[in-house]
């Protein structure tokens, strides 16, 4: 019962914060609301028994990605950009596309007649030990591919942000 209460209150908080992210004009305010949304989503993962995903969501997303976004906002010194939303026609197309997609998702899931039963979960479901076991045995290729991707991203960031070097020096 507490799981249900927690899940519904946290998910309404997450949706509220997400809407506030895209509504507010100041990019710093959007970033702070995005951080709040990430923390609520992390709490939802904890309620759904995904303990390691909860930890890594908090560390990587709120502690890494949003901090880097805030660095970029403060370094570039943007402040309030006067026209925050695109022109009326383009905004309308965007909102209609979004609502159409959401209606599609709702219709798919409400008209499903059969839904599988909850399968039995192992004793240590979602714990770090299980994640470690999976990474080494079944998902080893995914693990190695992610390391290669991170390396490529680091090299790419350094290459992209070099200033142009004059010839002859």
């Amino acid at each position: 019962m507490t799981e249900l209460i927690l899940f519904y209150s946290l998910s309404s908080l997450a949706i509220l914060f997400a809407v506030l992210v895209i509504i507010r004009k100041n990019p710093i305010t959007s970033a702070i609301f995005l951080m709040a949304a990430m923390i609520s989503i992390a709490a939802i993962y904890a309620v759904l028994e995904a303990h390691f995903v909860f930890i890594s969501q908090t560390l990587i997303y709120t502690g890494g990605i949003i901090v880097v976004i805030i660095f970029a906002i403060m370094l570039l010194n943007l402040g309030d950009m006067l026209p925050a939303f695109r022109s009326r026609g383009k905004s309308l197309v965007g909102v209609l596309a979004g609502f159409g997609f959401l209606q599609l998702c709702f219709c798919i899931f409400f008209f499903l007649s059969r839904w599988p039963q909850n399968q039995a979960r192992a004793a240590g479901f979602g714990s770090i030990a299980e994640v470690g076991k999976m990474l080494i045995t079944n998902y080893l290729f995914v693990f190695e591919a992610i390391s290669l991707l991170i390396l490529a991203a680091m090299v790419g960031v350094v290459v992209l942000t070099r200033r142009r070097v004059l010839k002859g020096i």
Partner: protein
Amino acid sequence: MPYEIPTIHVILLGATLFTIGMIGVLVRRNMLVILMGIELMLNGANVVFVGYARLLGDMGGHIWALSIMAVAACEIAIGLAVLVTLYRDRRTLDIDDWQLLKEKQVPKEPEFPG
């Protein structure tokens, strides 16, 4: 268990977060807020993965959720690097000013003798 969280609601939460992020990408002008919308979309997909993992008792959903987080970190790094380079060029982050992909003509750099 008498009071399980219905998985359909978890999937719909993921779909709603994804839609809100998508609307943010299509509606806002500031490139940084567009990047934040992309992060919201990735989080929506993550919620769907974790929901199905809980339904099926399979840990693969969690591993994929972690991979999506790693991919999001790499993508935000590269995206911000591109953004900083673009900002150095024209001093604006308005997406409507960046609609045309054509560059200004950069004058040819002078050759140094010797």
